[in-house]
């Protein structure tokens, strides 16, 4: 199907089914129960973040996973995409199509320029060059380009770029909603379905981003399986040898850089389409670091890894920041009081506002013990199960490795 081989088709179908059915899958607990408040993730805002960051990390994986070039400045393209999209909202109309197209084009142009320069070096120098370019973009967006009194106020500085009522909006029609919309279909609108005590939300913005993520995922599968993808892998394993055979690897790595930059631009445009407000903090280098973290958590160089990583990061960020001392006490109330207070006192530092700490520790653990990320962990588990099953003599029906 779709020129994919059997296992890739299976993978794609599973991902597609999960994306389309996510409002059901992510809402396993009935509305209003205490578990629902904690673990349900089926609300639009979070689901949108899952798929949008999925796109971003899929793109990052095409660069880092295939060529091994570690870019520490990828958030710059995310920010550039966000700003371009909001500018389209300000100038044309709130329709998201021109916004997304422009955000990809502008991010593509920037990544072409930055990539052309940065790819002249490799290894740590490449990381530092991309970092320097990203910090330059961030500083400029924050200071000169963001000063409301200057004549080139492109980013509106700390306030963030947003749509005002006196913006021109040359193509705005009066019938369309004044939030971002797809030909009249507002991104923020949702339809709700009540079954028993469950409530499922189907959000327009989520489905649009989800479908775009599937397209992005499909393209990335095709790239991974193409001769171009093979070339990028060859660059990762031994670039010098490639050069000795008389082959110029630069166009290939540059193409990979631009593709991943455009993915990031699309993700930025989508972020702005869900909420038309773009701020410079999206370009800060710690945001780039977070992209790297997501990619590593999931599994670099695998197809499904980026989606797992992005979903995992966003989901745990969400849960961990919601847990507070009261909930911990409630969970641990079966323990004797002294022990309970002691454990809560320790856990206090890892939840709520301390979720960064937990994710940081997790990230370190993954790098130290599981360089292949969660995907490798899943594969190891699957192998373990498989071996046990064959030892038992039963069929070795492997669960599809994530």
């Amino acid at each position, binding site marked *: 199907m779709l020129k994919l081989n059997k296992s890739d088709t299976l993978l794609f179908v599973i991902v597609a089914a999960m994306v389309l059915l996510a409002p059901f899958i992510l809402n396993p607990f009935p509305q209003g129960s205490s578990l629902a408040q904690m673990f349900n993730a089926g609300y639009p805002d979070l689901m949108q973040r899952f798929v949008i960051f999925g796109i971003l990390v899929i793109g990052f994986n095409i660069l880092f996973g295939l060529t*091994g070039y*570690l870019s520490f400045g990828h958030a710059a393209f995310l920010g550039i995409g966000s700003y371009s999209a909001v500018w389209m909202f300000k100038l044309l109309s709130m329709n998201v199509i021109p916004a997304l197209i422009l955000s990809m084009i502008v991010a593509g142009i920037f990544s072409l320029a930055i990539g052309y*320069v940065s790819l*002249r*070096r*490799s*290894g*740590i*120098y490449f*990381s*530092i*060059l991309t*970092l*320097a*370019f990203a*910090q*330059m973009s961030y*500083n*400029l967006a*924050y*200071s*000169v*380009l963001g000063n409301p009194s*200057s004549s080139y106020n492109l980013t509106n500085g700390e306030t963030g770029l947003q749509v005002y009522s006196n913006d021109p909006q040359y193509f705005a029609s009066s019938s369309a909603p004044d939030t971002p919309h797809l030909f009249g279909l507002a991104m923020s609108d949702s339809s709700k379905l009540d079954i028993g005590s469950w409530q499922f939300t189907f959000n327009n913005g989520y489905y649009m981003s989800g479908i775009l993520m599937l397209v992005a995922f499909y393209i990335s599968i095709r790239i991974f399986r193409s001769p171009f993808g093979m070339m990028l892998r060859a660059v990762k394993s031994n670039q010098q040898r490639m050069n000795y055979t008389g082959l110029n690897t630069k166009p290939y790595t540059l193409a990979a850089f631009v593709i991943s930059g455009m993915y990031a631009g699309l993700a930025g445009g989508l972020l702005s389409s869900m909420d038309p407000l773009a701020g410079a903090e999206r370009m800060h*280098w*710690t945001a780039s*670091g977070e992209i*790297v*973290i997501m990619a*590593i958590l999931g599994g670099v160089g695998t197809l499904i890894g980026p989606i797992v990583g992005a979903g995992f990061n966003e989901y745990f960020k969400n849960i961990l920041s919601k847990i507070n001392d009261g909930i911990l006490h409630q969970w641990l109330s079966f323990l004797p009081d002294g022990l309970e207070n002691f454990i809560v006192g320790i856990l206090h*530092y890892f939840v709520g506002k*301390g979720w*960064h*700490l937990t*994710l*940081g*520790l997790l*990230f*370190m653990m993954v*790098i*130290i013990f599981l*360089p292949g990320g969660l995907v490798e962990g899943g594969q190891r588990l699957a192998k373990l199960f498989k071996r046990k099953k064959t030892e038992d003599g039963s069929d070795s029906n492997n669960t599809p490795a994530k």
Partner: protein
Amino acid sequence: MDQILLQILNGLDKGSAYALIALGLTLIFGTLGVVNFAHGALFMIGAFCAVTLQRILNISTITEDPTKTDFLGNPAKIKTPIVETWFGPEVGASIIDWSVPLAIFFAIPIMAAVGIIMERGLIKHFYKRPHADQILVTFGLAIVLQEVIKAIYGANPIPTPAPEAFRGSFDFGTYIGFEANAIIYPYWRMVYFAFSAIIIAAVFAFLQFTTFGMVVRAGMADRETVGLLGINIDKRFTIMFAIAACVAGLAGVMYAPINSPNYHMGMDFLVLSFVVVVVGGMGSLPGAVLAGFMLGILEAFASMNQVKAIFPGIDQIIIYLVAIIIILTRPRGLMGRRGVMEE
């Protein structure tokens, strides 16, 4: 002329911080070959050593004074720092006043311990892994350290004043023949510059004139041969890591009065000090120091109003711009050795 001198002076304090952090980074890179993204966190821990010592010295006993009452009619509470009861009020007060310089002695053992634990516990296992893995694991460590500090000290900057004698500014210009009020410079920044000059000189002297330093330099040039001669080079490199951590920590301690310590100061300095290391040349100690001061001064010049009028925003990007040009035109940096990380 006085304008130029003023900008050079302005650049010196930041330049000193860059130089010290970059020196530590280069020591680690040159000896162990590890790219340490957690080095900014060490700088931050140093600054929080100053905060901690200040808090320890301010631990007080509370006594009630029945002769005075507060506005609710309760007896007034008087806080007496324990140091004052031990050493008498005057000596005690001056000890508290001098808490930042005293924190140097407090920070050295802590930073050395942190450095040794870091190297033996984590980084040791990453020598054989690719540079990207080293970058990532130390980046993770930097996040963790930053969050630990945030959990303990909160997210707000903590003002840590310099000793009374060094607060305020003095008229530096009059000492060297300019008219009054031409060059006003804060005392503490002068102290910071002098301090960092001493530290840098000490590190270089240690490497140049002691047997230990000689072995370390030999190890930097050819680790295997030194190992074959029966010298335990790993142990010495661990000690060098501890020294590098101390250098970063001391830079942080003394920086506390200039910029109130907060949990993300390490990350803020980290990127810049990496840029400094690259500009100076990976693995070159004099290069790191030179580039640190040079970029600090360049940044000060770029933030002059006359310059900003011609190139708006240049003060924000000058360092990165210089770094990009240097990396592209002179891959081994200003003073890098031939063949070191020259891909």
